């Protein structure tokens, strides 16, 4: 009787132990699977981030034929701004920085090189039309008038999701306000005569991996680590006025 009992107990104990062992193995297998899946998911995210960062690394040419230089060419610092006349953030950056940058330019510390191109053509014709008008004004009336025209374009910017877009008359009006002669700029604006230059400027920006506006480079380095566009203006002024 006793030996039978003991045997039964032993068997029960062995069974319990093998069950516990199986359960431990099960837990371990589970843990390894979870860690493995998490690792794969994190690896996917990291890969995408790294690939996207490489693809979007801005590699801007030192000089551009489709730019407007504001300031002296030999100023100690150069700020390159890639922008789209329809881009609201560009407008915000202009409003935040225009005055401070002008001060630095007049003090001889800085030259600002605007490189406008067409990024937001998905919204309509405005990006390309405004850029064509800008190039026409620059060609016919010179850089100073073009700078004023550039500022007026941002000051009078339509909303991205507009239903109707300002036409040639609007651009001619702003050009004249900036100091251009109407008879000189109207044909080019109406006939969109510099659309090849518009395409070339846009291609150049695309080749430089500029996928967002404004993209800002100070002395060839893309500005990235800033909290807000106002903060970026302060950073730039700090670096330039040292």
């Amino acid at each position, binding site marked *: 009787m006793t030996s039978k009992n003991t045997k039964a107990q032993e068997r029960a104990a062995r069974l319990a132990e093998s*069950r516990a062992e*199986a*359960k431990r*193995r*099960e837990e371990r*297998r*589970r843990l390894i*699977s*979870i860690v493995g*899946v*998490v690792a794969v*998911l994190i690896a*996917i*995210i990291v890969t*995408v*981030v790294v690939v*996207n*960062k490489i693809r*979007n690394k801005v590699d801007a040419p030192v000089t551009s034929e489709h730019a407007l230089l504001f300031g002296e060419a030999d100023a100690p610092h150069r700020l390159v701004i890639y922008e789209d006349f329809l881009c*609201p*953030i560009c407008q*915000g950056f202009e409003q935040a920085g225009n005055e401070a940058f002008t001060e630095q330019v007049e003090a001889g510390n800085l030259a600002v090189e605007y490189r406008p191109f067409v990024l937001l053509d998905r919204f309509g014709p405005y990006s390309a039309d405004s850029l064509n008008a800008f190039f026409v004004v620059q060609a016919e009336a010179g850089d100073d008038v073009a700078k004023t025209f550039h500022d007026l374009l941002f000051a009078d910017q339509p*909303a991205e999701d507009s239903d109707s877009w300002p036409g040639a008359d609007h651009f001619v009006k702003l050009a004249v306000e900036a100091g251009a002669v109407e008879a000189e700029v109207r044909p080019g604006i109406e006939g969109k005569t510099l659309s090849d230059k518009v395409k070339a400027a846009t291609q150049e920006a695309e080749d430089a991996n500029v*996928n*967002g506006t404004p*993209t800002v480079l100070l002395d060839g380095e893309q500005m*990235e*680590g*800033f*909290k*807000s*566009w106002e*903060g970026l203006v302060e950073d730039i002024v700090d670096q330039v006025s040292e």
Partner: protein
Amino acid sequence: MGRRLALVWGAVSALAFLAALAITWPDAGEGFWIDYAVPGVAVLLAIGVAVAGDVARTQLVARLVVGGVWLYAGWLKIGDPAASVAAVRAYELLPGSLVSTVGYVLPPLEIVLGVALILGLLSRGAALLSGLLATAFIIGIASAWARGLQIDCGCFGDGGAKADADLAYPWELARDVALVMLSAFLVRVRHRWLSLDRLLFRPSVFAFDGGEDPGTPPITTTEPDDEEEGAR
């Protein structure tokens, strides 16, 4: 458990929806359809659990809806990381050194999160992360609103300045509140009908889950504790 939780999340989602409706009235129809749909679905699912007691199907639909929203949001943003960075920056909330990284990480993170929820892969962890992420967005949007910023939330692409953003914030918040509620439900309830977790983590030695017919959803009333479900 399930029934009481359903009442809570249904009530909170309905309140968020009604609050958004009241605040934006009479211009409530201007927003993005997902912002209306998510709180609506959350209320319907809460009714599904509270009245029909069908946890199995509810968790599946909740996973598909929450996962679908993340997947869609990430998909719209992944091709344009520069815009994503700009959208994050527009909140003026994160330190400059983090803005770029967060902008790059968010789209693929949302896609992976969405796929995990839809497939039921590590569902509880994914649901937890989903709830935390939606909570972070609630904080971001509420803070932007409180500071008087007029920005697009950048949730589904776009981002940056936006006119009449005050009309969008309540709906964006209602959507994210509903996402948090549905995520919390998915963390709490361990039913995983039609999920990869069932395949991957099904105990191979002991059949804890009672071997019910895999072809039909395990009809579980909410009375027995859902946590007895073996496969998480």
